[in-house]
């Protein structure tokens, strides 16, 4: 038992260290060590280039990947619980498309990446408010209407994204927008982490704490109501937290799908079935999953492969396998 825990801790530390010390520029664990020491008290002589690459490129990117991965995985897990459907991911509720539009708009109208980030976040929230307004009838939102309203909201904002691409300058804005829509951690920075990180982490924590209530919601609306839970309020609280996390992720990383769908299923094999445990384990696995995938994006070749592409290439076949397993049982 102790060995198992030790093994886990070792893995948990090794993966980020490997990530931070690997890349197109040669660097070693010793370099990382020296850099970290220097942060507290300048002692070592360092190659300026290696220092900057590790401190300003790889570490922010690692942190961003972990935070986003944890957030998305927890979102997927929470949604699967609330909808009592294992085939649901965060894309279904409309946040993604809204945030995608906000980001595309930001790139179109300005050079300021913080404006882009804010617009992405804002429109992610607006998309969710649209879903709220459309799906809620006489103070009640059924799960089916939620999904349908999510589709409506998504389609609307995706159309707006096409509109933005339509009027974008093909020489510089359009390629930037297209690339952003495919998702990437390439523009990760401490400033962005400071802005969006705490938001995502606090929402993530709240989601985990709500795990117990998600278990109750999972029983079905009537049953949950019978056990004394205000179904509407609790469901919308979960959705609200999911919205905040997803909008935050899209605003710093563009559109990254298939993580919320895939990771909770991996987590199921390593966790107890109650949602408090499931959400926690999903978050951890999500963080490392994203980090490994991001390494593939930046380290496989000199090219930066878009994140959304790799998550889809891995996620879609896995999803197909899940679907088959479900149909067969």
């Amino acid at each position, binding site marked *: 038992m102790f060995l198992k825990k030790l093994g886990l801790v070792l893995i948990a530390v090794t993966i980020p260290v490997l990530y931070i010390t690997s890349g197109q520029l040669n660097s070693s664990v010793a370099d990382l060590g020296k850099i970290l020491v220097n942060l507290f008290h300048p002692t070592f002589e360092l190659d300026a280039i290696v220092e900057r690459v590790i401190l300003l*490129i790889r570490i922010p990117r690692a942190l961003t990947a972990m935070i986003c991965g944890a957030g998305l995985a927890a979102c997927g897990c929470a949604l699967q619980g609330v909808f009592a459907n294992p085939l649901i991911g965060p894309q279904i509720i409309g946040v993604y498309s809204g945030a995608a539009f906000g980001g595309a708009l930001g790139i179109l109208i300005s050079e300021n990446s913080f404006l882009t980030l804010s617009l992405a976040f804002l429109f992610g929230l607006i998309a969710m408010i649209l879903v709220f307004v459309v799906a809620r009838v006489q103070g009640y939102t059924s799960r089916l209407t939620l999904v349908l309203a999510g589709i409506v909201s998504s389609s609307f904002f995706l159309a707006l994204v096409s509109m933005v691409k339509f009027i974008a300058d093909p020489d*510089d804005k359009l390629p930037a927008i297209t690339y952003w829509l495919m998702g*990437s951690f390439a523009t990760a920075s401490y400033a962005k982490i400071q802005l969006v990180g705490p938001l995502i982490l606090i929402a993530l924590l709240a989601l985990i704490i709500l795990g117990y209530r998600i278990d109750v919601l999972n029983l079905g609306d009537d049953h949950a109501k019978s056990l004394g839970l205000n179904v509407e309020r609790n469901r919308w609280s979960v959705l609200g937290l999911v919205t905040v996390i997803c909008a935050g992720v899209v605003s710093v990383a563009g559109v990254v799908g298939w993580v919320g769908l895939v990771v909770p299923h991996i987590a199921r094999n390593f966790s107890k079935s109650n949602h408090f445990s499931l959400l926690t384990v999903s978050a951890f696995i999500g963080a490392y999953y994203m980090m490994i995938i991001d390494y593939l994006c930046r380290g496989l070749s000199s090219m930066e492969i878009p994140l959304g592409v790799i998550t889809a290439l891995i996620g879609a076949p896995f999803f197909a396998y899940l679907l088959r397993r479900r149909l067969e049982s």
Partner: protein
Amino acid sequence: MRILLITICMFWATLASALEVVDQKGRTIQFENPVERVVSIPIPAPSMFISIDGSADKLVGVHQLTKTAMKGRFLGRLFPEVLQLPSDFVGGGFNFMPNVEGVLALKPDLVFQWGNYGDEIFDPLTNAGLNVAAIMIRNEQDTREWIRIMSTVLGKEDKALKMVNWREQTMKEVKTNSAKIQKKKNVLYFRLFKNNLQVAGKGTYNDFYINLIGGINPAAGNKGFYNVTPEQVVAWNPDIVLMNGFEPKLSPKDYIEHPVFSVTDAALNKTVYSMPLGGYRWDPPNQESPLTWMWLGMLTYPEHHSYPLRDEIKRSYKMLYETDAADSDLNEILKMKMNAGSKGYTNLFK
């Protein structure tokens, strides 16, 4: 008898004025009358057209972004009438999808359209009975092709000859100089920089002229334009960095003062330069490309490449646009102010 003679003469007259040209898709287009009205959908085509015709008189419709590229700059000042031409026959952005009725309303004798962006934007025009010439601008070969097409259409074959000869001569001279270079330098071009980093790989025109002047393109490991991480750029550590002329307000400072790039050799040596913009941007292939080659050669290997660039610009502009370029124009074209802080720029091109 007289009637027969006149008829025969008229017949020969029409034959003589009949024009035929093969476009870049291999299609043959026949014109019964001389081409007087031209609509251009590709963004750089009007500039090319003006350089062959020496005037903008025959242009009746251009893309919106052609006008934004010309406004406030050399060619826009020279041919301000272009800025007033209608553009609503095609969308404002990356679609190039023509509104066929809008095009027909302009009564063009010829329409220029991209040949390599799909039939959906091409066929509606030919289906409407218009004369459409396909244009592609990917490499040096393409440039020679559209010079041929446009000069044939305009009956300016001798102009075309001059332009092609100039390119040939310059290329020869540059190659000769490049052959003498012993120690090659890395030259990296940023097609995009502001939102994400995009570089020019193997097969791009930038790759072509980097090699022409004797440089090495570190991004040649992959084909075409592609995105990279800042780390990859640092790993390549280029000797010379070229900033594109497409992104507005992009300047060498963006690279030199970048938190990560500022410690690379190019930033420390300030060998970062912004691509000039003359009749069109010097980045992609166009009628002024020989100037690009000379410019880059001088910046990369000043000991091997030495050309009277300012005089060359003046001379070629006289040939192309039939105009005298002033020194102030040259300063603007070469972006003297923007590149002032970069190594050797002011000295080389004064």
